[in-house]
């Protein structure tokens, strides 16, 4: 049993390594064929740039601050999304008040909001604000559906056994909504990064990944552009994995569904 699990893990890792090597090789050949570092730098050039960047304090400060801004915005968006989902599914007035607005926010292009936010609020707060704004509709939509689709039979059982409001939320609503919540968080993190970095590129906070991305474009430093993009991807993965780990730890028992 243990041997077969170890073998399957090893095979999974081998597949991942093969996949990574395949795409790096393809990238390498594309760079060779084009032959211009300005358009497609080689993986080696990007790795060298990344190594050189990561030896600078400013790099870590920029990455850390971007992570902090987007994480803050994302968490605020998740909390607000859950709160609005509860309010709009519970109270009709709240539903008619907020649901159309959230749907409009969901359909509005990110760039329009970034430009408007630049006029309304402090530049350095725009990335976090954008992350919040993009996350709210995702979490709201998922959580609202989850609340509305909670098993009626279990809710009736909770009434029959006098669970009370708090007990029903704790024992029925939260556990049944948790899988949808985990999935919404995972989608939200990716979206928060995309919108947060886009906002940084447009509002240029002093220390941020987006600002360095912008400068790389202005000074035609394509290897640096690739390097910063890799940093964004890595940070997004880091945040998504941390969230996933926390939710899995909390929701391990819910896997038994």
């Amino acid at each position: 049993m243990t041997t077969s699990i170890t073998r399957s893990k090893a095979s999974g890792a081998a597949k991942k390594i093969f996949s990574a090597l395949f795409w790096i090789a393809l990238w390498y050949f594309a760079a060779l064929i084009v032959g211009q570092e300005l358009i497609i730098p080689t993986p080696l050039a990007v790795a060298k740039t990344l190594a050189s960047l990561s030896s600078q304090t400013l790099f870590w400060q920029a990455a850390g601050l971007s992570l902090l801004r987007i994480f803050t915005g994302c968490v605020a968006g998740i909390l607000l999304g859950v709160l609005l989902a509860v309010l709009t599914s519970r109270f009709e007035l709240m539903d008619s008040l907020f649901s159309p607005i959230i749907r409009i926010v969901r359909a509005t292009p990110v760039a329009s909001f970034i430009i408007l936010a630049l006029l309304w609020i402090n530049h350095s707060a725009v990335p976090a604000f954008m992350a919040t704004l993009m996350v709210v509709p995702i979490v709201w939509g998922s959580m609202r559906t989850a609340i509305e689709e909670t098993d009626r039979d279990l809710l009736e059982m909770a009434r029959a056994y006098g669970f009370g409001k708090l007990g029903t939320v704790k024992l029925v609503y939260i556990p049944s909504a948790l899988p949808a919540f985990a999935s919404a968080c995972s989608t939200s993190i990716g979206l928060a990064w995309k919108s947060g970095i886009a906002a940084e590129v447009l509002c240029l906070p002093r220390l941020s990944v987006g600002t360095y991305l912008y400068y790389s474009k202005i000074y035609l430093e394509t290897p640096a552009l690739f390097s910063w993009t890799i940093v964004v991807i890595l940070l997004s993965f880091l945040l998504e994995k941390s969230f996933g780990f926390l939710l899995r730890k909390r929701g391990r028992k819910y896997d038994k569904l």
Partner: protein
Amino acid sequence: MISFRNASLSFGEKKVLDNFSLDIEASGATCFSGPSGSGKTTLFRVIAGLIPLQGGDFSSPYKKPALMFQEDRLLPWLTALQNVSAVLPEGDTASALRWLDEVGLKNERGAYPSELSGGMRRRLALARALAYGGDLLLLDEPFKGLDKALVLQMASIITSQSAPSLIVTHSADEIELLGGRAVYFEGPPLRVISEFPHRAP
């Protein structure tokens, strides 16, 4: 005495109770028998206070009825022990364990409902209903999926409770096992066709 007077209740076009009257002197075990879909479960839900009548009167001296549903309705994310504990005061694990032991599920206390057989889930639902400490037991097909030996064991547990019980069953053997008191229904709309032992109106 549980009493229905000219009760009426419909779900859309379907009349489940129509000018329905019944007095039930609940002491010991009383079985409700009749075709599926006749309205017995709806009657239980009214007695449990889960749905109100649309017309007529209903009165019951019981303040805390314990309803075992026709479906198990166990919380899939909780273990057997946690499912029983959920209806007990916080921290009363000893009582939950005692009830699990009573229905023969002590060794399955850490198992989730999805890991239990149909018969085990039924017994777990029964343990939860008994653990709730209701002053009236409303048991909707409590022996569904149980073998003969387990039916005997569970029937003996039910009849030994101090709280009176109303039990939906389709089996004459089970009615016999529970003491022989029964009300026979047909419907919908629900109608009493006979009572045994016969009671003068």
